[in-house]
């Protein structure tokens, strides 16, 4: 029976040489939603995607994708899934159309069936004019769009996207976002990983923040903000900001963090803090609502991940 849950993972674990990469992951994704997996580099996002696709075997845990047990029946599940990988792996020897043709064959589609889908796919990727262009002549944004079109060749129900807009310029990113919203509106379920908070906030109905192989918070973007952080943020800049923060910030902010010459103050009510800041003309400041990036930094810390 087709259920409303397209993917469910329970207590999924994976270690490499004693190093835990995914540690007890629970995930449930509903049909038609756009689900985002957020996390800093090395949080285990890509390994999670590979586990979900049945490309690597978990050490423990249970996993169902489109009513198939994975990895045992991963082949059947992948027939109905499309994947946009993090790094482009288009065939450089082929044209745009040939890439789609060859990829469709991997799903067991007849050449006739693929040819019939080609105009729609090229139109969707805005590549109709590049049909016979070879891959090395395409721009980065075009390659991404071709990779997205390729992931749709088998008309999948679920689409996995691993950092779909990393490395793209703003125009190209917006175009990809628009296409992903279109797919979602057509009823496709999307699972994407990203470390761009604006991307997650714009696209995703639900998010899970991952760090060190675990999901540390889950919910809609708004829920994540409400649950994890004060609603107002005042950023204070300038060379005196840190000194000011040490002596004054705690009186007016629930919480504050110093990062270089910037101070991030998190407050329920910003007015007392803003009045205080007006006493210090040498300090510049910015008052804004809390966003997902604040949540992300609070949950995963400010130190670099390399």
């Amino acid at each position: 029976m087709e259920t409303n849950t397209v993917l469910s993972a329970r207590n999924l674990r994976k270690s490499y040489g004693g190093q835990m990469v995914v540690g007890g992951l629970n995930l449930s994704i509903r049909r038609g939603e756009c689900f985002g997996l957020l996390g800093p580099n090395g949080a285990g996002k890509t390994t999670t995607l590979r586990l979900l696709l049945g490309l690597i075997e978990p050490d423990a845990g249970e996993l169902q994708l489109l009513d198939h047990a994975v990895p045992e029946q991963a082949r059947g599940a992948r027939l109905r899934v499309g994947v946009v990988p993090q790094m482009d792996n288009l065939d450089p020897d082929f044209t745009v159309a040939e890439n789609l043709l060859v990829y469709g064959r991997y799903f067991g589609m007849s050449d006739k069936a693929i040819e019939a889908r080609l105009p729609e796919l090229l139109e969707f990727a805005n590549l109709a004019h590049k049909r016979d262009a070879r891959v090395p002549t395409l721009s980065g944004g075009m390659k991404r769009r071709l990779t997205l079109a390729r992931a749709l060749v088998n008309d999948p129900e679920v689409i996995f996207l691993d950092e779909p807009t990393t490395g793209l310029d703003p125009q190209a990113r917006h175009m990809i976002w628009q296409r992903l919203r279109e797919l979602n509106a057509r009823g496709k379920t999307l699972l994407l990983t990203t470390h761009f908070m604006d991307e997650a906030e714009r696209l995703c109905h639900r998010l899970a923040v991952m760090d060190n192989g675990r999901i540390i918070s889950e919910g809609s973007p708004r829920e994540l903000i409400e649950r994890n952080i004060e609603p107002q943020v005042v950023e204070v800049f300038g060379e005196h900001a840190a000194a000011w923060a040490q002596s004054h910030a705690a009186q007016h902010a629930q919480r504050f963090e110093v990062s270089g010459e910037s101070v991030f103050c998190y407050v329920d009510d910003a007015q007392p803090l803003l009045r205080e800041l007006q006493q210090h003309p040498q300090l510049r400041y910015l008052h804004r609502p809390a966003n997902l990036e604040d949540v992300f930094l609070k949950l995963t810390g400010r130190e670099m991940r390399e």
Partner: protein
Amino acid sequence: MSKNHFALPRLSFRFVPIWRRNFMVWKKMAGSSILGHLADPVIYMLGLGYGLGGMLPEVGGMPYIAFLAAGTVCYSTMNSASFEALYSGFARMHEQRTWEAILNTPITLDDIVFSEIVWAASKSLLSGIAVLAVIWLLGLSHSPLTLWLIPLSLLVGLCFASLGLIMTAIAPGYDFFMYYFTLVITPMVLLCGVFFPVDQLPPLLQTVSAILPLTHAIDLARPLLNDVIPAHFLWHAAVLLGYALAGFYVSLVLFRRRLSQ
């Protein structure tokens, strides 16, 4: 290493679209590829066969160029499969990430590795047919038995593709393949009777020669070119097939380990 890495290969016909993909790439460069398959053996056979052969009496009971022709068929088919499995296979696995793209479809790693072997053997088949055409054109053999060189080329291709993929599975980069060509392929060419009869070797090296796959290929090819049904032909074919199956299994285990990282 997980015990699942040691599972027996599970094959399906899904390897066919990968073969077609490789064929589509090959078609775009077919001219230079066919030229390579023809030029190399022709240069060897004419240069060594007539040049060196002119100074020699009969070798192994035949003119030297005819002796060399049998070695060249096997040597060329071995090389075709080896280069394809090592350099091109590594490019598809590592550099172009073609395998990664394919693995996101219903195709499994077992299918991919099998497709690599069949594809590399297809290149050997083409190479074998090219050399055979040269042999006929030069009038080096008129025996209908030479047609058996066509399936033999395929078998030699399967054997050396499988062995080559073991190297591909453990290679950190292209430079690594130099070990294989210098330490395995080149000694094999000298030990297995491509250029001179194996019985010219000291006894110890003859023993080594007897276990090398290229020797068994040449023991089949040379009589066929001489219009003789090879002695122990089932045994020689079985050895080549055995190497192919063992190489397939070992390389698959190593690829499973490599790609599960």
